[in-house]
């Protein structure tokens, strides 16, 4: 029934339920939470599919209610500090803190997404903080510069909002970030593959959503002519395992950290084995 901390240069505090609650870096503290939520795919009209993201409602639903958490701390060498979060659904996650790293790692397994209710689902992971980002966020542009995105806004024309959620989703090839100028802090989330990302429709300030998995039951009529419903090895749907690295740093230092880290994520050491010693 007590909070506990994983601590090194970066401190993460978990609440009594095993959920991440606070991050402290350089004596600056922010409140943070992480949860998996889902959109329901539209089942009438133009559906969500391979080409488009069109949820039936402009809001998310929680994926899961209950969670069992296990804490692993290596007291002797400090190599391992992690919390395994097993949800009572099709989602599981490991949160790791590396003694030598400046980031928190989220290693998640999602799927197979159940569709017994005949509703397609698009799963997001949400990182909510108390950062004030003035309704703006930044996404990379396939290895070029970070582009500034603003909620319900386009820089070169007057934007009329017809689809409030998908109209604010952008491609995230390697990272998405929000900045708080008053606190002089930037939260950057590095992805291990291209995903869709945005601010959270339910909390435009301080919160980032990344879509990690989708399973849909209708074609979107843009030419693929089949729903986005990969069967997986057992025919029950695809399971994904992915990784996000969350960096929290000052505005001045953020780019210095996330640029080499992106290279390290995309070009990991090549590991091979031989039996001779």
């Amino acid at each position: 029934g007590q909070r506990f901390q994983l601590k090194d240069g970066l401190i993460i505090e978990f609440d009594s339920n095993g959920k991440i609650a606070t991050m402290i870096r350089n004596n600056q503290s922010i409140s943070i939470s992480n949860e998996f939520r889902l959109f329901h795919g539209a089942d009438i009209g133009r559906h969500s599919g391979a080409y488009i993201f069109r949820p039936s409602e402009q809001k998310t639903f929680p994926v899961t209610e209950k969670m069992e958490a296990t804490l692993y701390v290596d007291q002797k060498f400090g190599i391992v500090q992690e919390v395994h979060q097993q949800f009572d659904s099709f989602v599981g996650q490991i949160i790791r803190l590396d003694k030598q790293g400046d980031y928190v790692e989220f290693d998640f397994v999602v799927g197979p997404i159940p569709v017994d209710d005949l509703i397609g689902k698009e799963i997001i992971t949400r990182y909510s903080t108390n950062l004030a980002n003035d309704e703006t966020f930044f996404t990379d542009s396939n290895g070029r510069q970070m582009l500034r995105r603003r909620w319900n806004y386009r820089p070169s024309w007057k934007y009329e909002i017809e689809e409030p959620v998908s109209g604010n989703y952008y491609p995230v090839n390697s990272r998405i970030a929000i900045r708080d100028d008053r606190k002089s802090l930037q939260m950057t989330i590095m992805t291990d593959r291209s995903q869709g990302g945005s601010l959270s429709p339910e909390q435009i300030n301080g919160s980032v959503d990344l879509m990690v998995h989708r399973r849909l039951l209708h074609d979107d009529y843009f030419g693929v002519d089949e729903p986005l419903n990969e069967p997986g090895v057992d025919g029950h749907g695809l399971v994904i395992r992915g990784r996000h690295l969350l960096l929290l740093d000052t505005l001045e230092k953020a780019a210095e950290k996330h640029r080499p880290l992106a290279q390290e994520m995309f070009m990991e050491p090549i590991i091979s084995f031989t039996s001779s010693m």
Partner: protein
Amino acid sequence: EMNITRLREAMGVMQHHDAVTGTEKQHVAFNYAKMLDSAMQQCRHVISESYRKLFPTQTKEQHEFCPYLNISSCPSTEMGESRTIHLYNPLGHRLVNRTIRVPVKDGYYYQVRDQNDHSIPAVLISIPEFVRKIPGRKSVATKELVFRVPIIESLGIRRFHMIATKEKQQDSAVEIQGEKFVGHK
């Protein structure tokens, strides 16, 4: 040259807009995966040959690669046998304090030693059930052997020995016990 060209060509095909965005039909997606996998196998052969050229006195064996390490599965390391682990850093900058995770099975003790036979601190940690139960994962690994590599120079190679024994040794990896508690939303 031909072995590398297979992957170059496959990557060329993957620049088609359907492959970039994932808007290809499912049978095309399967074919893309097959094409990439076969090209990657050819490149693994090239890497193996390179090691043999660089270290001609040390190994004549083909290197084994583990494409299922992403689901904590690796037949090379999880059968309770000792292995040499080779790490190649493809980056133009050095990697510092890299954590390496190798799937292993229960019932053995493991030591990690560097090229100079110095013991490297290592720990064992459980692979969570939600990873072990991933459909299609055919693995006997229930734990990961975790150790830290202090430095791998740019374009550099580091090698470590993973020694599996039936009896506990003084420097065997310590198993980390989890502290479990149930939470509610």
